[in-house]
């Protein structure tokens, strides 16, 4: 497995971790009935902002830890950071796939609105589809790298 593949795997696992923590926190708030309160929208907005900040910090930390572990495990002082045309094409294809997955989630959320689902649940569904799309994009990228292109 190459450095890029491992990096993609780490990014995917980090995404899953962040989403897992976020979902459990949201479920906890839901159980406490916080989303039934008048300031539920504010709470949701804050949670999204915290989640974005936390995911950036976690991504930076895991990236540093990964680089150190990779250097120790392989003995490579300088990993190969060359990004060539194939990498860029795979990245673009993965982004395209990710966008398609997100579009389905977004349309699904809009359909849920038609069936009188609460706007907060729709926002959560949209966030979920965003995470699922990101993970799907990473899986797509891994498959491309494994197959050659």
């Amino acid at each position, binding site marked *: 497995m*190459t450095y*890029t593949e491992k990096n993609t795997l780490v990014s995917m696992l980090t995404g899953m971790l962040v989403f897992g923590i976020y979902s459990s926190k949201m479920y906890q708030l839901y159980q406490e009935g916080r989303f039934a309160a008048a300031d539920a929208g504010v709470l949701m907005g804050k949670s999204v902002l915290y989640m974005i900040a936390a995911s950036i910090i976690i991504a930076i930390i895991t990236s540093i830890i990964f680089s150190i572990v990779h250097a120790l495990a392989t003995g490579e002082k300088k990993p*190969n950071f*060359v990004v*060539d*045309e*194939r*990498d860029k094409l795979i990245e673009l294809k993965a982004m395209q796939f990710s966008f398609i997955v997100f579009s389905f989630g977004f349309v699904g959320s809009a359909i849920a609105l038609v069936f009188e689902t609460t706007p907060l649940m729709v926002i959560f569904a949209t966030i979920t589809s965003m995470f699922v799309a990101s993970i799907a994009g990473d899986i797509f990228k891994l498959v*491309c*790298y494994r*197959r*050659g*292109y």
Partner: protein
Amino acid sequence: MGKSRVSNIIRRLRFDHNEMTQKDLAEAIGVTRQTVVAIENAKYSPTLELAFQIALVFDKPLEEVFSFTPLKAGEKK
């Protein structure tokens, strides 16, 4: 993502060039070794620029390094 219709003789050319490794070729053309592997196995068709660079490394004309198999009548892409 199957086999490309663009085939090549890079493997043989590497062998003829003092058994040049895939890593050496990758460094010479500024790509990763995995990209060289994908091109050699006809899994990935390089851009025209990269194809020219590869041909230049082996000092051969482009059409000698790469060949293209056109679709037969009724054959799907």
